[in-house]
């Protein structure tokens, strides 16, 4: 091949985003990882997380080039150990405070707040780690901004969301995404977020009305129907046999209303959850900005419903299989141990098998979720995205340095991790 041939091949600089990964390869990665996690009592999770990110990142093609994840599993392990060094004394302090009975309630509330704050802090710092390990066209992403600032904002927004029964959720999301994205950059290309809370509110209001609406209606209706003073009097008396009296006051109509409301709300939540995910993903992707680069999402809701239906089908299949294997194992153990006449051995084998089966089912269901839902949503999200102004990606200057994985470790220790 001559140099002339090499340099004449034109590459189209379109704004297309694609996902190149094969699901079969991802299944193999996840199943092998789950088995090794089980065997190593969890230590392998740092290597699995790194493999998963390598797979997802390097198969995501943006405007003709793929992303690269260059984080290392050992960095995650070190971050986790560092986090343990912080979290263990903290939990010990809470335990000591909880033992002194005068401050028990206050210390529990304070502890909960502190852990929530630390959790949000960890999420922000973990995002920073992942971004600084994300390379695109030889230039890394970066994130600045104070993680404590973010954590305080997030906590304040959560309080508002709870107080407004979820109605403030769109604005909370918009505000937090704006904070994250304006502190994000690709080289010298500054990130921004252009999604508006009001737009998300309009999209989400029907979902809220169907899920939270029945509960609010029922509470209003019951507050009119029920004689609250009489009920309070009974509860204040603290009698153990008051159940019948309470039933009498609430009445069958009251119970019917309550049950119908909870049923409708739960049913709506299950049926509308994929729609909610679709609305959120579409809104989030369409809001992403890097300098002059804008993103639009053509994600269709039906695609997301298909993802969840497939998940339900796979889980049902898996549980049936696990039940079958479990019963078969019981028969085998019984046949093997019957001649031994050792009750101890039989008990040990049966309990070990029960624990094993539980772990296999839990880990299996989580693996199915990771492949059939999480990875599929990643694929749908990328494939449905379209960049405009992609030529700006060609002239970015490199900036920033990699940071430690403390945030990842904290998120892991507190159980709030992401991808």
């Amino acid at each position, binding site marked *: *091949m001559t*140099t002339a*041939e*090499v*340099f004449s091949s034109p590459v189209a600089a379109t704004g297309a985003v694609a996902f*190149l*990964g094969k699901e079969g390869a991802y299944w193999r990665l996840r199943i092998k990882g789950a088995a*090794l*996690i*089980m*065997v*190593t*009592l*969890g*230590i*392998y*999770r740092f*290597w699995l997380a790194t493999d998963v990110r*390598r*797979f997802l990142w*390097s*198969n995501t*093609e943006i405007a003709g*080039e*793929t992303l*690269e994840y*260059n984080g290392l599993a050992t960095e995650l392990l070190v971050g986790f150990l560092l986090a*343990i060094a912080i*979290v*263990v004394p903290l939990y010990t302090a809470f335990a000591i405070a909880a033992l002194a009975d005068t401050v028990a309630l206050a210390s529990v509330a304070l502890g909960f707040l502190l852990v929530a704050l630390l959790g949000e802090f960890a999420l922000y710092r973990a995002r920073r780690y992942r971004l600084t390990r994300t*390379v*695109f*066209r*030889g*230039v890394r992403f970066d994130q600045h901004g104070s993680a404590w600032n973010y954590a305080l904002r997030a906590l304040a927004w959560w309080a508002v969301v709870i107080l407004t029964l979820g109605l403030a959720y769109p604005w909370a999301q918009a505000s937090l995404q704006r904070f994250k994205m304006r502190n994000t950059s690709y*080289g010298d290309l500054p990130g921004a977020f252009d999604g508006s809370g009001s737009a998300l509110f309009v999209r989400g209001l029907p979902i809220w009305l169907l899920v939270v609406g029945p509960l609010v209606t029922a509470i209003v209706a019951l507050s009119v129907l029920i004689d609250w003073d009489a009920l309070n009097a009974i509860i204040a008396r603290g009698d153990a046999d008051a159940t019948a009296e309470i039933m009498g006051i609430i009445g069958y109509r009251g119970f019917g209303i309550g049950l119908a409301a909870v049923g409708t709300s739960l049913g709506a939540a299950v049926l509308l959850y994929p729609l909610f995910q679709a609305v959120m993903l579409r809104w989030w992707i369409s809001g992403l900005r890097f300098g002059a680069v804008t993103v639009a999402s053509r994600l269709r809701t039906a695609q997301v419903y298909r993802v969840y239906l497939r998940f339900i089908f796979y889980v049902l299949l898996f549980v049936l299989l696990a039940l079958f294997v479990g019963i078969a194992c019981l028969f085998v153990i019984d046949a093997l141990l019957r001649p031994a006449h050792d*009750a*101890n051995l039989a*008990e*040990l084998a049966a*309990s070990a098998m029960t*624990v094993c089966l*539980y*772990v*296999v*089912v*839990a*880990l299996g*269901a*989580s693996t199915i979720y990771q492949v059939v839902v999480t990875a599929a949503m990643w694929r749908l999200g990328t494939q449905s995205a379209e960049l405009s102004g992609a030529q700006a*990606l*060609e*002239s*970015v*200057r*490199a900036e920033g*340095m990699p940071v430690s994985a403390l945030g990842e470790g904290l998120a*892991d*220790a507190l*159980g709030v991790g992401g991808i």
Partner: protein
Amino acid sequence: MTFASYYVMPSGPASYFDGTGSARHDVLVQAAARELRIIGADRRVLDEWSYADLRRMSAPDGVLRLGRSGETLLARLEVRDRTLAAAIEDRAVTLDRGGAAERALRRKVVGLSLAAAASLIVTAIVGVPALTSRLIPLVPLAVELKLGNAVDKQIRSALDARHLGAAFACGNGPGKTAGREALQKLVGRLAAAAALPFHLHVDVVRRGEPNAFALPGGHIYVYKGLIDKAQSPDELAGVLAHEIGHVAHRDGTRTVLQTAGLSFLFGMMLGDFVGGGAVVIAAKTVLRSSYSRRVEAAADAYSVGLMGKVGGDPRALGVMLARIVSDKDEGMKILLDHPETKDRISAINAVAIAGVTTPLLAAADWSALKQICAPRAADGTAAKTGQAAKAADQGVPPQR
């Protein structure tokens, strides 16, 4: 560069990112003897990468993405041409063709994790009990007393399901002095022989189950159900001696230390994965039960010794145990916090010398002690101390 070497050298197209900016350079790459030569569109050599510095970076299938080690700039070379990629992999050992080195590293991680798990389990079975035994003498008695007082309040209110308050304990009211004195006599004989560093405090409480337990610091609770089941003062004394054994061995403090050690071993370092919580809980339960079985066996042996010292029947504890569990299914053996009763009885009988002994209490004292929780209406003279006491006097039905 000679004319000949230019054509012998494997070469091919690649994408090159120089790391200072995102611009893509379409380049020609030559795999020279010691380095990769990256040649730009103007035929100029843009960079030369030595094979020793090459690192394989994650990339989709069919792409060899190269970086250099020790670089802060992230210069990348992406080779899609298979022959060129193979030629580069032939020359650069660091690229770990086929991933053998990476697999060996993973195997090491798995192997070391298994070793860590095994050492953890051995430490939990052998190390934690051994460590706690050596730590207990270092825990001051005052700390144990404080611990006992702290749990006493909680345990007492949990047991006192009917909210009887002061009347929950038997033998406090006037008219019950005979029962109380009999109990004191029995406890006094045992305490004198035991010579504990703690002051023993024995309470009989209105619970129907045949049970007794000791708290750290010398507070022993005996249930009314146990006194009802006992047919001789020595049987009651055998159980009391067993509980005194827990006090003497400082088993309350031992349990606290052991539980803390287990939580540290299992809670933080391992098990942080889906379903792992179940493994940790199962392992902790089995281990805690095994610690507890050892502690109970030691208390049984102590009971035999103490009963021998005061001249009681050392086998009475076994007789009492047999009566209590005659109609109970004990459940899964590895989850039992006491050894199986028939094993306990045979262990007791193995060390206890059989022989004729005189009962530890005279017949009159024993019948007074048996009546310690009886309704006060029986003696007719007692003053009522309040509604709660009155409720208690109606006779509390057994809880289970």
